[in-house]
């Protein structure tokens, strides 16, 4: 009932909001999104409300998204979901336009972490907001509550000899070097100074020697965790993995280490050739509502920017992913580290 009255109170507000929406009827909104971001039922509800038609195109990789948007200078889509790191090249190429945050009324419903958009690297350029945070996933640590009595509070736990052979790490060069940098107290894990490469390499060799193995797929990590008596897991897939493990019956906890957790943040951006920016903004505003937000959490196991998660403690630091200094260098070194070479041999080439 209380909620009902609250709704009544905001009714005049809604009227104000609905009025311009009436002008959207008959328009077409062309959406490019990841699977699960624009489910048919959610799209239908938006269409019924606005009278506009929504055309959803799904992509499954950053590269495909870049191809689709950059081809024809973004003329084929109005609005798309992109992570903060990827967003930068779209801004540089002038493919996206600033968003009128005043039109996104539901920004107010987002959790505190997203209130200051300037604090999220890459969203604001020259005072203009280029994307609205929508969903995110952080790469915290999952631990076996039966083996690890005190929740680990640092990324360095991955190197802890107590968990030797019981650590699962991710087989990914970019994130692993960022992890190494964080574990050594570097402020910006996305930029490794020239002098630091040997140090980071040694750090990852040490990680190699402490882990059971490196996984690639979420399901693989669950199999290994359950079958190999793993104590600690670097959750590259975040709460998605947590959900899988809990479903598999594991007694696991999830922490954001004190160094912070790497996290990707998907935001909605509007292209330069959007036919109707008001419609695109209405779409973004709509997706921040309760129903679409809960769909993200319940159907996809992803975090919603409007729903506080019980797995987070206040003050948990999320480090939004940014482009790294040299993808190829990280990849080259990582492959050699993974293959089992000793330090000298890793650095030799």
């Amino acid at each position, binding site marked *: 009932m209380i909620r009902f009255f609250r709704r009544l109170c905001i009714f005049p507000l809604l009227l104000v909001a609905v009025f311009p929406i009436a002008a959207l009827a008959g328009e077409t909104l062309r959406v490019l999104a990841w699977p699960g971001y624009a489910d048919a039922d959610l799209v239908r509800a938006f269409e019924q409300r606005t009278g506009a038609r929504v055309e959803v195109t799904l992509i499954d*990789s950053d590269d495909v998204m870049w191809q689709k948007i950059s081809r024809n200078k973004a003329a084929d889509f109005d609005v798309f979901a992109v992570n903060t790191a990827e967003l930068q090249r779209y801004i540089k190429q002038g493919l996206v336009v600033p968003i009128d945050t005043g039109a996104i009324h539901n920004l107010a419903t987002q959790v505190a972490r997203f209130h200051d958009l300037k604090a999220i690297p890459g969203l604001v350029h020259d005072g203009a907001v280029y994307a609205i945070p929508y969903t995110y996933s952080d790469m915290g640590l999952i631990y076996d509550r039966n083996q690890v009595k005190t929740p680990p509070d640092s990324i360095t736990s991955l190197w802890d000899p107590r968990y030797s*052979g019981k650590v699962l790490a991710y087989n990914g060069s970019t994130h692993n070097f960022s992890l190494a940098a964080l574990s050594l107290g570097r402020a910006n894990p996305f930029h490794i100074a020239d002098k630091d490469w040997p140090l980071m390499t040694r750090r990852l060799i040490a990680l*190699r*020697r402490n*882990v*059971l*193995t*490196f996984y690639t797929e979420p399901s693989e990590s669950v*199999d290994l965790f359950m079958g*190999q008596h793993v104590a600690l897991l670097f959750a590259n897939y975040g709460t998605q993995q947590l959900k899988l493990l809990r479903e598999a019956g594991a007694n696991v906890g999830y922490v954001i280490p004190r160094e912070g957790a790497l996290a990707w943040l998907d935001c909605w951006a509007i292209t330069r050739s959007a036919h109707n920016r008001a419609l695109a903004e209405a779409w973004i505003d709509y997706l921040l509502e309760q129903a679409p937000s809960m769909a993200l959490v319940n159907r996809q196991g992803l975090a919603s920017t409007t729903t506080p998660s019980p797995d987070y403690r206040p003050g948990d630091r999320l480090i939004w992913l940014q482009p790294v200094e040299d993808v190829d260098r990280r990849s080259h070194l990582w*492959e*050699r580290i*993974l*293959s*089992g*070479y*000793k330090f*000298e*041999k890793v650095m030799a080439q």
Partner: protein
Amino acid sequence: MKFGLAFRFTLLLAVIGVLAAGSTGYYAYHVSRGMLVDSAKDELLTATSVLAQRIVQSRKEASSNLQILGGYPDAIAELEHPDRAREQEIATLFSLMMKANPGYYEMRLIAAADHGMERVRIDRDGDRLLRVTGDELQEKGHYPYVYETLKLSAGMTYMSRIAINHEQGAHSGQDRPTVQLATPVVDRQGVTLGVVVINVDLNGMFAMLSADLPKEYLLFMANSNGDYLIHPDPSQTFGFDRGRRILVQDEFPATADVVQGKADHVLIEARAGRYANSPVVAAFIGQVVQVASPEHRIILGLAQPLPAVLAKSDLLGSTTLRMVLAICLVCIVLAVLLARAVTRPLNSMIAIVQNFPDGHRAEGLPVERNDEIGGLARSFNDMRTQISRQMADLKQSRLELEHQAQHDALTGLPNRALFDDRIKKALAAAQRDNTRLAVMFIDVDRFKPINDNLGHAVGDLLLMEFASRIRHAIRDADTAARFGGDEFVILLRNIQDPGDALNVAEKIRLAVNQAFDCEGHMLVVSASIGIALYPEHGADTIELSKHADEAMYQAKEQGRNRVVLFEHPSDTP
């Protein structure tokens, strides 16, 4: 266009025959085709099982090599106390084994200690075998084939996932499809000191698997999740290595049961997607991996293009088609014959019926038949007999009527109408043949008193006898007629001269003069006879009749009972 019964009957029988033959042929073809496909599937299944057994055999051979190495005292000793000479011996042994087994990319002795440090390692590098030493040796403890194998008991084999080997520095084996087979090295106290690992070249094994297969066979292999490892299109293999899963159960949905272990084999006829234009039959089996391995099973499949399978069926089909056509032809011929057998008696009956008014006989009617046609013929014959009889009666009546119309009822002599007809014809003939004829008018002298005194019956009897005597006095070709009352007329044809006519007349007059016995009355009568001749006394009936009548009256005037030949008044002297 109207079609006769025979045509329709033929058509119906032919259609029935063709339909029967056609449907039987099609059914036979269909069933045989199904059997061919099934047998092809069975053959594929057998071949697939053989392949699976070959893989198992290869794995077993590698396992026995591993067992030898796992218990090899030098290996144990090396892992306990590294020694260059021993390493050399082990390396030599590895080299020998790799020479004997071209499918081995790499053989290694790896220590449990030092993070899984490689102790002895031989790589295949092109055609040569390369011993890897020093800084090139790597720590492999974080690879499943090391940490999983270390957990096994002596003599057991571990099989890794089948994957692209991305371990750096692996020479020929790098970035190639590889499976690692490993066994623990266990000392006498049961302590596991390390592992021996053989990297098996899967391309080699795939080539070996394909080698003995007929060319048109398509070979498929997938891991326990269904990810393709072998596919006729190489771009479909190891998709997971490129971040894109390409699954056998997506291409062949029926294989899902094999992937999930619900079935140990599945037989498929694929016609969708890639196989829309070139359908295949396929057999997939799930070969359970019998050693410790993350690959619970290997999915193996063989497919054969449907056209190859159906080539036999096409032969069968064309044979069946020929047979069906032959049967159809026979059916048509039989239909024609049968239709004719039924319609021929009908047609002959029609012909007989059509001839009926002319022919009086009904020969050829199949009355002797015992079937419906015989019944019809008999009914028809009865009807025909009845009609014939009625016709004959009718004809008789007509003839009698005709006779009555042309003859005198009392004497039976032709009447005036018939006489006129005959004289016309005789005149025409005489004119044509330039011959002579005579017309005689005869009148019974004093007949009226007889009639009045003795009664009509006696008069009639007299006239009848009179007529009879006249008839007997003339030739058959001549005509005697009664004109009514006591007047008689005679036509004599073809007389030579007037004397002939006078002779006949005289003969008649004498015959008449004989007494008549009429119911006891002996009557004596005479006749007056007038004669006119053609062409002397007239050219036509009227003239001749008139002149003969005049001559007769002349005879009466001259005293009756005499013959008078007409004479023209100018002829009278």
